[in-house]
């Protein structure tokens, strides 16, 4: 049976992709950003940790989805997904290969569990999905695992509540646990932490709030899943709302988890970069 033991969260700042694509990892600006991923890059490629498939929870940034159609939750079920052209050509990263059997299995179980999923087969994937792959896996010729893309709308309001995202995670976990193939599955939540990209308040960072959020991934998830949208917006900037995607990840793990690694750095472009690796406590 499939097994889900680890959850990872990280910001997906476009500039980090630029830094990697231009081989500027050792620049003074980028060095402290990438340093925090060294541990994870080592850890994740050990045979006992390396995922066969990652369920990668991300949001589209007006790349695959225009205002013509705005799904709340979409799950990618096609065989593969191409990196999106976000205005300066697609990132020079490998094509993203799905695990379509797992993706469909999860989609089917979610719909039967009253999640009104949108199934998507044609979806260019933007930095929201490819930057996390880069920070974890560096620059391989092909990504070392399959990736099931799970897209959450955090752009057009209203976006799903933290509690709904948490429950989606729980339902994903039940689906993975019932997948009849020996498969090492990880779940990643991406986006955040505090940042605001728009208007006169752009540049807002709330390190104290972010650190408490990281702490409570292990210490007080009841608080986290009940954080109302208005708190994300006020305290963490308008784009801090992306942290609801961390809750999908956390909801898919066991009630008790252990923090294996953490990285927090300001700034990455306009954003507080956060990263955490969590393991189920048996």
């Amino acid at each position, binding site marked *: 049976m499939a097994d889900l033991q680890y959850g990872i969260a990280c910001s997906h700042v476009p500039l980090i992709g630029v830094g990697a694509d231009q081989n500027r990892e050792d620049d003074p600006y980028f060095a402290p950003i990438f340093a925090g991923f060294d541990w994870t890059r080592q850890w994740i490629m050990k045979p006992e940790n390396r995922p066969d498939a990652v369920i990668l929870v991300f949001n589209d940034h007006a790349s695959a989805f*225009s205002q013509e159609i705005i799904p709340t939750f979409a799950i990618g079920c096609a065989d593969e997904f191409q990196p999106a052209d*976000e205005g300066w050509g697609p990132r020079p990263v490998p094509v993203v290969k799905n695990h379509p059997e797992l993706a469909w299995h999860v989609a089917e179980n979610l719909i039967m569990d009253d999640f009104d999923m949108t199934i998507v087969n044609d979806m260019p994937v933007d930095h929201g999905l490819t930057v996390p792959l880069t920070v974890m896996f560096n620059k391989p010729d092909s990504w070392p695992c399959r990736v099931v893309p799970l897209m959450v709308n955090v752009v057009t309001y209203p976006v799903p509540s933290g509690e709904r995202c948490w429950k989606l995670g729980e339902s994903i976990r039940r689906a993975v646990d019932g997948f009849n193939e020996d498969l090492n599955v990880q779940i990643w939540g991406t986006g955040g932490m505090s940042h*605001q990209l*728009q208007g*006169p*308040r*752009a540049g807002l960072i709330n390190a104290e709030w972010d650190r408490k959020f990281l702490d409570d991934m292990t210490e007080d998830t009841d608080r986290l899943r009940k954080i109302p949208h208005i708190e994300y917006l006020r305290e963490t900037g308008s784009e801090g709302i992306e942290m609801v995607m961390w809750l999908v990840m956390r909801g898919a793990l066991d009630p008790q988890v252990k923090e294996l690694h953490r990285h927090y750095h300001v700034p990455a*472009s306009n954003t507080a970069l956060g990263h955490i690796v969590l393991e189920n406590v048996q």
Partner: protein
Amino acid sequence: MNRRDTFFRQAEDIPGTTLFTSGKARQGYWINQFSMSLMKPENRKKWRADEKKYLEDWPMTAEQKDAVLARDYNRLLELGGNIYYLAKIFSTDGLSFVHAASAMTGMSVEDYKAMMMAGGRPVEGNRSIREGN
């Protein structure tokens, strides 16, 4: 007041922030659709060749078109643009989110970068217009 109205009311109380709600989405539909058209290389080429002419095909108001031509991003947010869509415009200009963000805050790029290096804009005083905190 229901949950929806309460939330939208509270969001309006956040200083310097425009929530991309249904009202904005309707008002800015064509700003955002135009912006997304710039994701295609052939469209970027046409746009660069003659911005005004390119805009002729899009059913935006004169005000919206002027704001696009002027790269007035705060105005575009007010008129229904969403920042992830507007990003296609400044990306096509070869500019980053940091450039656009500086412009929206009224700071020079250097000052804005310095603020970020020093830990970013503090939340203190930036939470609520009403509460002034």
